[in-house]
């Protein structure tokens, strides 16, 4: 048996044995990424809807900027948040650097543009279909936003998932602002980097399998949900 296969078997044992060290890392990863996605959705969905409904000077520039930020390198996002939160930085007094909160902030910076930009496209399409009817009912644009977001919900689930994919997979931002501190800010991606460099392949591989499995599971659930809803809604 090659060493890789041996590592794979050990990884499985760690997962199936519910190794506490591994579980802690997985739990923190989920806590950070889910919080970041929730916050990013809370800000990004209304922002995307607003950009779909209103035209103002600088609108085009803002849309282009948002689209560009979808490709923001995680290390750059991490660096910016690091500068903000470091002792000498403008928000240094909060003492957030190297805490899970800082990791959440960094991931929000990464995910929010994705959710806002993709939500804008979805809402804009729906608005074209709905706007005369909603205007006829006497709705202002502000009051159209919740209606449009709710009726675009099928597409927006996919948008939020894209955001979660980004958050759970990135390593650069959480590494810089979290510091990969054992038991405090160590998440799956940073642990994989560390364990691989240390040569502890079974743990790295185990974490990798869990990460893959989680992403696959969430996407499968969303796909099934979407299909069911689509069949029901026609």
């Amino acid at each position, binding site marked *: 048996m090659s060493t890789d296969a041996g590592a794979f078997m050990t990884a499985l044992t760690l997962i199936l044995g519910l190794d506490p060290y591994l579980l802690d890392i997985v739990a923190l990863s989920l806590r950070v990424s889910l919080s970041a996605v929730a916050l990013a959705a809370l800000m990004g969905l209304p922002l995307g809807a607003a950009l779909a409904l209103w035209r103002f000077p600088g609108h085009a520039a803002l849309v282009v900027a948002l689209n560009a930020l979808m490709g923001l390198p995680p290390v750059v996002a991490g660096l910016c948040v690091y500068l903000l939160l470091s002792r000498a930085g403008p928000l240094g007094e909060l003492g957030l650097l190297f805490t899970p909160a800082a990791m959440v902030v960094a991931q929000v910076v990464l995910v929010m543009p994705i959710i806002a930009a993709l939500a804008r496209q979805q809402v804009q399409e729906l608005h074209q279909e*709905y706007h*005369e009817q909603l205007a006829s*009912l006497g709705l202002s644009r502000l009051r159209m936003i919740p209606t449009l977001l709710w009726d675009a919900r099928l597409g927006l689930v996919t948008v939020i998932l894209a955001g979660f994919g980004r958050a759970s997979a990135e390593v650069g931002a959480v590494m810089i602002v979290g510091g990969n501190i054992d038991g405090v800010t160590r998440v799956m991606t940073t642990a994989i980097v560390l364990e691989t460099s240390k040569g502890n392949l079974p743990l790295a591989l185990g974490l990798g399998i869990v990460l893959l499995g989680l992403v696959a599971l969430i996407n499968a659930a969303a796909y099934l949900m979407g299909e069911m809803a689509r069949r029901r809604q026609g």
Partner: protein
Amino acid sequence: MNDMTTLPVTDVPTLEMQGVTFIHRGQRLLGPLDLQLRGCRRTLVMGPNGAGKSLLMRLAHGLLKPTAGRIHWEGSAPRQAMVFQRPVLLRRSALANLTYALAVTGTPLAQRRPLAREALKRFGLAALETRPARVLSGGEQQRLTLARAWLLKPEVLFLDEPTSALDPAAIKAVEDAVQEFHAHGTRILMSSHDLHQARRLADEVLFLNRGCLVEHSDARSFFTAPASREARAFIQGELVL
């Protein structure tokens, strides 16, 4: 042109248009147009495609602003609703589409469901309450938009070619609904290019051609003795160019 002395005039506010013009990308699509719509009548807006029928109704309803001219309701603007050629329904159940409209108009929560169910029943949709609105047939969808309009208790109802995509049974249902609205004191402004339908429904006719109001007359005189050459040709089934 206007002869309404014999018809009842209720307290639906008069709509007045003065020099209303609509220009889009340098092209004059409507007007200048002067018009007065009085009383609780059934007005059919007729004319060939592209005559400006939909545009006129959207301007009157306030969905579009005229490029020039003035649109004015005498007194305060009445409660209005509009039914479109292609039903626009939310991605929700039939019942939820109706409770939504009630929520928008500020109906107390406890009253929404009972009122919505009553409207579904009135328009023969009671059995479809929980169905997603967008899987209903074309005729059912249009009836649902009429039920939604009914809940708004409009003083003026706009209908933009509401039957152009429907089969005869569904057309009948829509026409019955229009009559019911009118019987309950709602002014009707409806566009159609179906002459038979216009004969069945109209008290008066607005005839448009190429963005101009060619004729505004009582239905009877419009169909028996149209004043304009274009309207005569339209009624005789010729191509109006």
